[in-house]
């Protein structure tokens, strides 16, 4: 798995390339935490899951952990390019209550920067 990170203002755009599970979750945590520490202006987290075919509860765990971190800064969590299967995992876990799924990068950025 590989993690590609870009910033757009207060939004951290994280593109997960590969499967997010027990063995790859630590890399996600480290990379995202490093960015959050370095850039205090970053509030929101936008996950681009176009190249993420698989997420299990270990993956959900690190996503939730990062959400807890940004919500201390008043940040929110969005995802784009979510496959049907991954959407169902989000749904079942209740993560959809704290995460909004958007259709395009533009929509997601606009909705995150709104408030």
């Amino acid at each position, binding site marked *: 798995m590989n993690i590609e990170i870009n910033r757009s203002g207060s939004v951290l755009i994280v593109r997960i390339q590969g499967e997010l599970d027990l063995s790859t979750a630590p890399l996600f945590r480290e990379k995202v935490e490093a960015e959050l520490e370095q850039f205090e202006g970053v509030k929101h987290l936008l996950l681009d899951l176009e190249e993420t075919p698989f997420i299990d509860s270990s993956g959900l765990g690190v996503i939730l952990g990062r959400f807890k971190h940004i919500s201390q800064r008043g940040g929110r969590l969005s995802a784009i390019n979510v496959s049907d299967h991954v959407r169902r995992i989000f749904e*079942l*876990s209740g993560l959809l209550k704290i995460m909004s799924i958007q259709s395009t990068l533009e929509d997601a950025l606009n909705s995150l920067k709104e408030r």
Partner: protein
Amino acid sequence: MDSNYLKVEFPSLPENVSLSRVIVASFAAQLDFTLNELEEIRVATSEAVSNCVIHGYRESQGRILLELTIKDGELEIVITDYGCGIQDLDLAKTPTYSTDPERMGLGLVFMESFMNYLTLESEVGKGTRVTMRKRPERGTNHDGSKQ
């Protein structure tokens, strides 16, 4: 595919979780599962094997047994570790209950929702065994016979 089996043993390394998903999905593909059902099987496997690695063996390392069987058109997955075992099975099965504050306590919930059958057996200090079964939805009538 009338009947087949696959017995696999590997050490409790995080890297082997994805390997176990590949193995189970390729084996399961010998039955007429849909892509969606195969995804469900992959998640259930991932959760059970991850549990052996994180909870069963924690900081230590041990062996994990993955036993797959196809019989009468049904897939059975048995995943065994020889780790610390579970004190309270009912508590472990409670949704969002986890002994690890970093985790979501959803592993057993996913296994239960994605498979047709689940049992959890455990003995403290001896280890834990999960047995799961799943039957392809399409091509089976409600009495279990092939269409």
